[in-house]
């Protein structure tokens, strides 16, 4: 009667294990990029305070063009004798500050505008959205170039120029999310209770559209870091000698075949940071099931 004997039941085990395994990996999907970002941000902002990191500018010309692994200059020096590692750390401060500020700007201005527009509706909505359509119709880099050029290259102006294209994108997401909330029963309930518009926006709409905006913001961080680099590349970003990852790559381009490491080091750290933001955005998207 061995035939009837049921085999041990790995199926049931697998079924029990599967969700646990999935949760475990899912936790990792957030933890790994967060750890990576903490590492990058910590290195950029804390290391120069704690460790004897040489100055990123005003290097000694006698020490120019040292190769990777030189004593005192772990990643070598650039043609101006500046320490590359130090420039990457200080440049990271710039790139991260720009990315965070631009996205906060987009979130605050665009998010509010979009939520208001979607909540109020009617003529105000049409006017706001048409104006934003104009901004969106602009290829963002082209607009940013024009704005950056008219304001002149500097840190603040780079932030403003990038904010110009970040705002409409946030506004669109925020409006779409608000519109889909409008039909929800709890919104009707709030209206029936006579809740004031401000309170509805802050207490009912804002918490519900926060996941979408946060996810978008994470992906936006990567985009902004890349575009800041693009601006530097076209000579309209953070002006030299101050370092940013973008302008390091663009300065290295001139001697690409002779000293490729000048391009590759900042490119690598740029890639890792953007990848971490993208992975984090993706994990949050899955976790909150945002589309």
């Amino acid at each position, binding site marked *: 009667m061995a035939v009837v004997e049921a085999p041990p039941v790995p199926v049931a085990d697998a079924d029990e294990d599967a969700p646990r395994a999935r949760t475990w990996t899912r936790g990792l999907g957030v933890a790994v990029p967060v750890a990576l970002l903490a590492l990058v941000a910590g290195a950029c902002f804390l290391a120069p305070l704690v460790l004897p990191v040489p100055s990123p500018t005003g290097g000694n010309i006698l020490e120019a063009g040292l190769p990777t692994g030189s004593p005192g200059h772990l990643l070598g020096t650039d043609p101006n004798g500046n320490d590359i590692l130090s420039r990457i750390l200080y440049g990271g401060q710039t790139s991260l500050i720009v990315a965070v500020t631009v996205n906060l700007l987009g979130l605050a201005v665009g998010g509010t505008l979009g939520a208001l527009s979607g909540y109020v509706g009617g003529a105000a909505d049409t006017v706001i959205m048409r104006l934003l359509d104009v901004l969106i*119709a602009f*290829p963002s880099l082209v607009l940013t170039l024009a704005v950056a050029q008219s304001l002149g290259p500097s840190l603040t102006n780079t932030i403003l120029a990038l904010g110009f294209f970040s705002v409409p994108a946030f506004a669109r997401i925020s409006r779409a999310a608000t519109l889909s909330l409008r039909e929800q029963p709890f919104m009707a309930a709030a209206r029936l209770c006579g809740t004031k518009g401000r309170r509805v926006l802050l207490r009912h709409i804002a918490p519900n559209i926060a996941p979408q905006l946060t996810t978008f913001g994470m992906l936006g961080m*990567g985009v902004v870091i890349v575009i800041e680099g*693009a601006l530097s590349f*076209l000579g309209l970003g953070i002006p030299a000698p101050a370092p940013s990852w973008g302008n390091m790559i663009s300065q290295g381009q001139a001697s690409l*075949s002779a000293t490729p490491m000048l391009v590759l080091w900042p490119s690598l750290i740029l890639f890792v940071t953007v990848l971490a933001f993208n992975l984090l955005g993706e994990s949050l998207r899955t976790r909150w099931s945002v589309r």
Partner: protein
Amino acid sequence: MTAVTAGRHRGVGARLFASPSVRLVGNRLLMAIPITLGVSILTFWVLNLIPGNAAQQLLGADATPEQIRAMELQLGLDKPAPLRYLDWLGGAVTGDLGRSLVSGQSVAGQLGERLAVTGELVAMAFVVSLVLAVPVALLAAYRPNRLFDRLSMFVSVTGLSVANYVLALVLVLVFAVRFAVFPAIGFVPLSESVGGNLHSLVLPSAAIGIPMFCLYTRFLRGDLVDQMQGQDYVVTAQAKGVGPWRVLLRHAFRNSSFGLITVVGLNLSTLIGATVIIEQIFALPGLGQLMLQAINTRDMAVVQACVVVFAVVAVLANLLTDLLYAVLDPRIRYGSR
């Protein structure tokens, strides 16, 4: 709906006007006009903020104020901005985009040549990325979470995190410096040699196309998997005994193609932005390079025309996206929203 049924008894023209898709096209075309106008006004305004005008730029730093004044009069820069905008608009509507303040050439003529280069670059990047993305996404979605799927997702998430200028430089480093397979710079016009032209565009279009390939693959794969899991029509098809590939291709892919079209359409303006940098790196004589040069020389007529062309292309791409919806999806809700 009543208009459609009534239309059956009227002439072809009336029927055409009553057709929802024609009305949709008309509506979208009408909306494209104010957007394009808005873009041109915005450009004009932003460019006016740039300190230092073309007269100063042309005469150099040591020009006397009188000389600058005379040059401004000659170029018509003394008129107030709104008036100059209207002048420009009047010309633009009739196809006259003015003359370049720096080279004196007609802007429209310059644009034509440049647009062909940029257009070719975009088209090559576009075709390659879509032709690769669709089969890869289909293969990945055929067996989700298997080796090929994981591999393709890894590649596409990685590829999406590489800035296009970094990718361009790495491509140059590998394929032009290390192995001299493709040229890093030196554009060969199509009229000179077709093979040489394609050869000179391989690296630039790869630098633009690879991130697009990654974006499309990831999106399409995700959407296909969503469709295949738990959509009623998929279950129905499977229950009818339709083969797995057929369900994927004829049922799920058809539905996922809407999402893909949206992504492609939305992405087009990013793509146009990318050409500016890529043309700069590979020294391609395209629209982006022209615009960048014009920005640096304060050649407003040229910048204005370039930006408007970029914007018109973006608006047209969105229009085309909407129209493709109407073609692909008979359930599309006309006029609502």
